[in-house]
């Protein structure tokens, strides 16, 4: 089976590198975009299985970016949010938009990876529930 593709939209090169390293070492294919425009191109052309986006991005914020992708017909790609912002309502906005996870920076890499695995392999998580009679 091909490795699952994760699009990382993060303008800080170090954080992007950390994310890439973490995800690649877990066996994922990573597309790292420094901003929404490249991110959008990646999303269209490479059909990622998951998008992880920062919120404060150079030309538009991460949630607007996701909203745009959804309007453009990429609504079924799950997405997660990582942010250094600390604003009221941000978490709610992300959740209402359908985020599968939300991490505040500095995030814990191991937890992030867990959330990625759960998002990309929902069956394994659901199967434990189904064992219950």
């Amino acid at each position, binding site marked *: 089976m091909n490795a699952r593709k994760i699009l990382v939209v993060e303008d*800080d090169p*170090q*954080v992007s*590198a*950390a*994310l890439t*390293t*973490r995800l690649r*070492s877990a066996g994922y294919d990573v597309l790292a975009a420094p901003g929404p425009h490249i991110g959008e191109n990646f999303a269209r052309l490479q059909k990622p299985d998951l998008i992880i986006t920062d919120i*404060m991005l150079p030309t538009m914020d991460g949630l607007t970016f996701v909203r745009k992708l959804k309007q453009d017909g990429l609504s079924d790609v799950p997405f997660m949010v990582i942010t*250094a*912002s*600390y*604003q*009221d309502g941000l978490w709610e906005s992300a959740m209402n938009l359908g985020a599968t996870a939300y991490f*505040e*920076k*500095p*995030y*814990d*890499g*191991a937890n992030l990876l867990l959330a990625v695995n759960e998002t990309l392999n929902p069956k394994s998580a659901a199967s434990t529930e189904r064992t219950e009679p």
Partner: protein
Amino acid sequence: MTSAIFNARAAISPRSVKRPRVLVVEDEVIVAMDFEQRLKRLGYTVAGVAHDGRQAITKTAEGNPELILMDINLGGGMSGIESAVTIRQRHDVPVIYVTAYSDPDTVRRAAQSDPFGYILKPFEDRELETAIQVGMVKHEMEHRLRESEQRFNATLTSIADGLIATKADGRIAFFNPSAEKITGWIQPDALGRVLGEVFPLADDGTHGQGTDFFSSFTLPGMLPGSSRTASLRRRDGVQIPVEYRAAHIHNDNCQLTGVVISFSDIRGRREAEARILRTQEELKRAHDHLMHKHEELQKFYHTVSHELKTPLTSGREFVSLVLEGLGGPVTETQKDYLGIARESCDQMRTCINDMLDVTRLETGKMSIELNPGCVGELVTRVVSMLKPAASRRKIQLSCEVQPDVPHIPMDETRIAQVLTNLLNNALKFTPEGGRISVTVSCPPAQPGEVLISVADTGRGIPRENLNRIFDRLYQVRDADAASCKGLGLGLFICRELVSLHGGAIRVESEPGKGSTFFVTLPVAPRRRLRALVVDDEADIREGLQLMLEAENYSVTLAADGREALEQVRREKPDVVITDLVMPGRTGPELLKGIRHYCGSVPVLVYTGHPESDLLASTLKSPPVFFLRKPCDPARLLRTVRNAIKVAGHVFAN
């Protein structure tokens, strides 16, 4: 006037008759002796007899008479009238003329000298008596009037307000020293002049029109006693602000006889007002400036925290990656070192978040979301997260939760933050081998409250610092506080977060033995949740009712769709548990009705006959949950709770 007449009558009444000592001035000796005898007969004392005008003056000065009977035609070169005028100038003694002449010229001359009576010779004793008594009363009244006038004058002269009184023609008749000071006019110049000349007022923007004090019966726009302000042009041309009151003077016939104006120079007050206004403006500017700076600072804080967190993220993450061996093999020593580095990153994160929390708390921008939750579970979770840190420091960390603690409305993240903070403090100040115990309970002494306590065996807090430790920026400053670090914001944040929950935090401590922090959180008056059970089988309805009522739900029942819809409308339930196939109305129809009348109330479809087409159509009216009959009570209750929670309908209504 009326009272004066009344007084005069009273004075003449026999009881109050006064017998003055009388000086008789008469140049004819026989007549003088006759006067003397008559007076004595009437009970008067004769103070003396003078035979000419000059003698009369001397004897008045020496004998202190209380009344003088004065002949008009006297020998010796001085008439009685001349003598009387001189006496009246020097002494306050009433003079009654006694004369045989009553020609108009004499009477006129006598009248001019302001006499107190007039007797024509020859006269009877009774006439003499009456003339003397009337003279005495008149004199007394004049005396009183003069005293009153003097008092009045002294008062008006001494008051600080300027006073001007005019006659009916508007000419000034009274002008007190304060009026002189304020207007710059002196009394001799002002008297007799028209009011407007001496007291020219101009509109200062408050009274609208020119001031004509005589223009109407009541002064325009002025209530009695009310004051107005205007601009007064002084004699030297300088305009000054004055406050004035005016009143009309009326005589007994209600005719306007003059105007009285009192006024004061309000330059001092105006200056003070202007100063206050200036100060207020300055304060407002300063306040606006500070608010602006404050907002700038807030933005700056957010930017700084963002800029700090970003490198911290990659720093911490790369340390983690190496620590986890993703960068190649790591020795145990390297693991220890990297572990410390990562902990430092976490401390820095805490600092940044604390700083942000404080700025939000102080600006009232911290919002908490209260949802019913189990404190016991939360505390257990937080304690278990900190167990590793405690065991690393060989501190025994225990947690004891009373089993029947009710759910309370809380923001779990924030209460977890409070607990983490308290536990981190306890860990920081408790030596190796110490103990930290956490309890959750419902103290009987505090009904309606849940109590969380965090007790440590640390070095305690000196008594004098106990009430300061929750202050912002308070830091423990101790010689041996080597482990002390942080911004001094933690407990402040704890207190504020707890108070946002309507709770309180306090501390008890004994230096050398340890400290215990107590957090009390209110158990909000929990509204009983309402459940509507719809089923055509009575056994099932009643079974569900028993089950739900045991869990403190208030339950209403309906046997068919029609009844159900009515109950939904009336009871507005928090959850509906319904069968799918019923007489009256099918499940999907019922659901449509429910959505129409009761919005997004969660509906739990409890059915034994899963008919796929019906089930599919119910899905068009979410939130809908399914449960297959039969089902054990625990699972049913769990599903009901979950349905209410997921639908978020608990705090609605």
